[in-house]
């Protein structure tokens, strides 16, 4: 009996050995001694398998970090960092597949295989960002606060690319990239001198005519 996992496994094995997707579902099913029909009970296409591999990595990471004892004590920033570290730690186990899957899609923007994973990521990110906004760890800015999650996704894409090209022992450089990158992103989410400058500008605009009042 085939399962989601067994098909994922067989597929990964195939693409990593052959370097490309199977010619057809028929060929793939026959090779794995199952009916083509059975395949479709689980997946609609090969890309769907890849998508499911990414989403299960994402889900596994999130449930793992949430089960850590320290999780409730973390700030939003730390929760995001924790996600990044754990995700790339987990991804190490499927590095060859990840590299194959990402490199295959030479598109600008989010690769198709990552689209469902992106939804999970965004849901997770929105959750921790809202916590941060509520606790005033992050600065609530009109319009912009809604885009914070996009900035985190961009960060995710950046780190993923960095990791693919990282050849340092133990991917230590990726750890550095996460530590520095995520921190910078969260620094931008926090109240910054720009906010104060903006406030000041607003104040001056509201209190127009100051020049006259001061007698200049």
């Amino acid at each position, binding site marked *: 009996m085939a399962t989601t996992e067994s098909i994922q496994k067989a597929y990964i094995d195939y693409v990593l050995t052959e370097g490309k997707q199977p010619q057809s579902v028929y060929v793939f099913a026959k090779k794995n001694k199952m009916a083509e029909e059975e395949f479709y009970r689980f997946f609609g296409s090969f890309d769907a398998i890849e998508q499911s591999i990414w989403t299960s990595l994402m889900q596994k990471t999130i449930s793992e970090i949430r089960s*850590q004892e*320290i999780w409730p004590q973390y700030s939003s920033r730390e929760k995001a960092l*924790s996600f990044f*570290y754990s995700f790339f730690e987990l991804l190490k186990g499927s590095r060859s597949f990840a590299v194959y899957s990402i490199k295959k899609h030479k598109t600008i923007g989010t690769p198709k295989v990552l689209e469902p994973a992106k939804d999970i990521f965004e849901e997770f990110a929105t959750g921790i960002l809202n916590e941060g906004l509520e606790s005033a760890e992050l600065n609530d800015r009109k319009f912009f606060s809604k885009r914070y999650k996009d900035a985190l996704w961009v960060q995710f894409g950046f780190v993923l690319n960095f990791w693919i090209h990282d050849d*340092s022992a133990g991917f230590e*450089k990726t*750890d550095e990239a996460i530590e520095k990158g995520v*921190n910078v992103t969260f620094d931008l989410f926090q109240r910054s001198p720009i906010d104060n400058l903006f406030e000041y500008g607003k104040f001056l605009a509201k209190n127009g005519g100051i020049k006259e009042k001061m007698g200049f």
Partner: protein
Amino acid sequence: MSDNKPKEQNSIPTSKVERSAKFVTTGLKIGGNYIKHYSKKLFNPDLDRSELNEDNATDIYQSLSELKGSALKVAQMLSMDKNLLPQAYVDKFSQSQYNAPPLSGPLIVQTFKKYFGKTPEQIYDKFNIRSTNAASIGQVHQAELNGKKLAVKIQYPGVGDSISSDLKLIKPFAFRMLGMSEKELDVYMKEVEERLLEETDYELEVRRSIEFSIACKVLDNVVFPDYYPDLSSKRIITMDWLEGIHLKEFLATNPLQELRDRIGQALWDFYNYQQHELRAVHADPHPGNFLITPNGKLGVIDFGCIKVMPDDFYYPFFSLTSTNLFADKEETIKAFRKLEMILPSDTPQQVNFYHELYKQMISLFAKPYITDVFDFSDKAFFDDLFGFGEKVAKMPEFKQARGVKHFIYINRTNFGLYNILHELKARVKTDTYKPHVQELDQVE
């Protein structure tokens, strides 16, 4: 300093705060250099990094040479001006690492998972995710296991890489600015790089810490934490938490002379026992590496930097300080030649000149060894030392590279020790662990 005339220096930063401020500004300037570089690169993608490197190196060098004052004066003296650069590096690195931002909680968890496959909570009964202290290239956390209070040291990622790349970056400029040949400077640079890289190897540090704490058990009033190799890895060290206060806080409590003497004696014994009995020495006498325990003992908490002394350095050097070798000019010059303080290419006048100056220098350095008891509060002695260092630093004869590479760390160690003892105003029995120089005859 050949054709590149350094900018005039109106004042020398004196206090520690000013010195670190110096490094912060350098950091900012370098940050600025990167911004400059990348904004230029936006318009000209072909731009290579050489201009950036040059900007950085100039700024680093500028700040290093401005530091010539109190911090390096001592080191310069026996280390002869050429060592200024590596010495300054040592300081710069420890300084800049102190300024490193603390590791985030998740990175700590990640580091543990990477090396042990477990989170800190799964390993220890209690683990404080917020760090309590900065160590030279990492940070220290408090933990508890089986009722024991532990100190867990975690290293910043990528430290090793940045050491090598920083050194590589500065090299070509150092050659040019010091007017030294690559071969001359390389020897010293390598020595510094080796030691710095060793410091990033925590597995090595645990092994050495255990070795040294066992070897030094014979010493009175010196205590070491226990180390736990099973709970340590390349980036993590677990050891006992030593209760105690640092030197500065200790001095602020206005300790009795008797207690100062006891701590000073412990320090003296610790260093001289290592130098003369173990021939390898804890080469980082930074006050932060010591604690004074509540019952008045000296706690040693960091064995990251160890300098091993080979025989061909040990015997000629300590026979200069601890025998009446100076009475015999020929033999003295022979020893100087072995230590490369006098070079084969020197003219007879030069031989005389260096002989005279090094003799003065070493006699001054060896003063504490000559009497059985030495009072390190003696301001006149330190004024002499600093004054001599200053004088030598200005002499054109000392611009050139002289002395074997081992001097860098041995000088740093002994002058660091002298400095701490001076701060302690301790009276120390200096004949406890004497150099063994009698083997000299057998070696020859």
